[in-house]
């Protein structure tokens, strides 16, 4: 009996050794600087599965080629709601000893400590697309003026429905700074129209189009006949909304403004089920993000906030060259 318990004890102490061995003895820090001529910039999107981020990647690669001697490391979580994975990616990039991190935070609060860790290790961080809570000293913020984008959407929707009637705002996810700005901008601008009534503004479409479609199905069920217009604040949301509107047979009747393009939405604009798309410039965002990072690394001061512009595509202007470029931004495969 005694022997058994002794061996058992042996096993468990030895058993947990790897974890200790794995993590202990880390007081001596070594950073392999490698060849310093090529600067490695990690560009971390919110997620890797949407077209939007592939355009950001394109812009980042473009900047890298222009500057020369810059290598872009492109890595992000698969789904945009996965804050834990994004924190892991940031930490891995610090481990890789990159020269700078260009990050689109999934959540304004969740990434604060990861960014602080990075800045603490001497790796500067530029934030793009979506804001970060106060705290760590970041080297720049490159994004669409989302508040303004939301206001533009409100004006476009008001125009489409003749400045009177019931409208719905479909939100995205709680805690996503960029879409919250759009939502706030929309609500503020729509309040300027006394005849327009926002009948629902507390529904979240969720991270994918399937969830968004279910939400809009319910909303149409509930408000169907009394509804004049819908604003969906981002691409997955808008795709789901478009599907739901089509299914309910309300295409064209319910005026619909989207944010960010997709093939389905562009097609919708051609056949009259979409009445406007607010566009951002993701290529410019990736481009400016990397440019800002290089400027910061070179010790040049950068402006705190850089807007990459926001545009409204309508069925009338969608064939113009500027809008064609933004409706189908170039992507990296």
């Amino acid at each position: 009996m005694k022997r058994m318990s002794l061996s058992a004890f042996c096993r468990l102490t030895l058993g947990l050794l790897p974890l200790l061995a794995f993590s202990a003895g880390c007081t001596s820090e070594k950073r392999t600087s490698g060849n310093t001529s090529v600067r490695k910039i990690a560009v971390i999107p919110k997620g890797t599965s949407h077209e939007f981020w592939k355009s950001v990647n394109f812009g980042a690669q473009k900047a890298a080629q222009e500057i020369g001697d810059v290598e872009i490391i492109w890595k992000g979580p698969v789904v945009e709601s996965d804050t834990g994975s994004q924190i892991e990616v940031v930490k891995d990039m610090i481990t890789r000893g990159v020269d700078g991190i260009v990050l689109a935070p999934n959540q304004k609060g969740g990434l604060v400590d990861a960014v602080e860790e990075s800045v603490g290790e001497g790796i500067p961080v530029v934030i793009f697309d979506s804001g970060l809570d106060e705290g760590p000293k970041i080297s720049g913020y490159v994004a669409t003026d989302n508040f303004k984008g939301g206001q533009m959407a409100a004006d476009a929707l008001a125009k489409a429905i003749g400045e009177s009637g019931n409208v719905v705002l479909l939100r995205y996810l709680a805690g996503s700074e960029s879409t919250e700005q759009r939502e706030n901008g929309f609500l503020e601008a729509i309040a300027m129209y006394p005849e327009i009534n926002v009948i629902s503004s507390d529904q979240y479409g969720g991270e994918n189009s399937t969830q968004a479609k279910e939400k809009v199905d319910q909303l149409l069920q509930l408000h169907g006949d009394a509804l004049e217009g819908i604003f969906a604040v981002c691409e997955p949301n808008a795709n789901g909304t478009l599907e739901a509107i089509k299914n309910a047979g309300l295409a064209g009747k319910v005026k619909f403004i989207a944010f960010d393009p997709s093939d389905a939405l562009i097609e919708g604009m051609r056949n009259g089920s979409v009445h406007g798309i607010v566009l951002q410039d993701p290529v410019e965002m990736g481009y400016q993000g990397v440019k800002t990072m290089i400027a910061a690394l070179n010790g040049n001061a950068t402006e705190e906030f850089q807007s990459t512009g926001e545009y409204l595509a309508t069925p009338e202007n969608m064939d113009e060259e500027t809008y064609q470029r933004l409706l189908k931004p170039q992507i990296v495969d």
Partner: protein
Amino acid sequence: MTENQPSADQRKANPLLKFLGRLGPAYALLVVVGLFSVLDHQFGSQSFFSARNARVIANSAALVAVPAMGMTMIIIAGGIDLSAGTALTLCGTALALAFRDYTVPVGAEDATYWVVCALAVGLGVGIACGLINGLIIALAEIVPFIVTLGTMTIFLGIGQVIASESTVYPETEHLPDWMRYLCYTGSNSDRYWFDWLHVPSSALIAIVLGIGVAMLMHFTVFGRNMVAIGSNPATARLCGIRVGMTTVAVYAFAGIFVAAGALLYFANVKNGNPSDGTGKELEIIAAVVLGGGSLSGGRGSVFGTVVGALIIKTIGSGCTMLSIPNTYTHIIIGVIIIIAVLIDGLRSGKPKWLFDRLR
């Protein structure tokens, strides 16, 4: 049961060899670490085999390993808990709510009292989730897979209700520093529990809890009963073990680890999002299985589970260092899980057709 009965030869075998034979998953970890170190040195960033990366991996492995310890007990006892992921984020959401609405800023009077209360709420939710699972399984005599499949969505739903279908953000200034830096992996000594030992606090918690569970499994009657009901519930009952009571206790006990895991999750992402948990249970179960746990019960070890979690996270980290895209990382992890279980099966004479042919 057969796997647990040492044959006459094995009993005579050198205890050292026997001991080394039990370290199976650890060899796999060594192989994975070695492989990635070489590959990374040749083609990657040369930063895989570094102290910092060890810290990062230890931290992310701890996030999986802690709830997986509870799962190990459940699996050894012949059960399964598909609700672990959503129960974990339910706990995390409860913690976030407690830190948003019911605590006071750090430094204020009674701050410690409220922090303790918040932690107690998290722990209570965890144990309650486990207790519910255990009671339904034991009283209704439904297979654990179905019961926990049901509670998985129930916990998700409850989480969404208390979070009003969104993400709960706590007040940052209400979080004490030790909790804020629980998952810190940087080089600032002040943020570790021991400034001379740069090990993430999350990993330290995992080690302490791991030793606790291993002791429980080996030295207590409760621990041995767990193995007994997992190996053969009928025999266990005939031996005078109260199978139902033990089952309930195992699930409730596992709830403690779900709650501890929730604390780490919360300290990592600093918010509570109930839908984050979907899919976590599979990672947790994968860690147990990689560590040699058998889903038919009676076999598994806490040490193996910890190593299993390390293997999963090491592969993920290695793939990042080598700039392998996410998509391939998923495929690689899946393949390794299947291969690991296959190799593990060889030790106990599986697959049978192969051994029959060799004979």
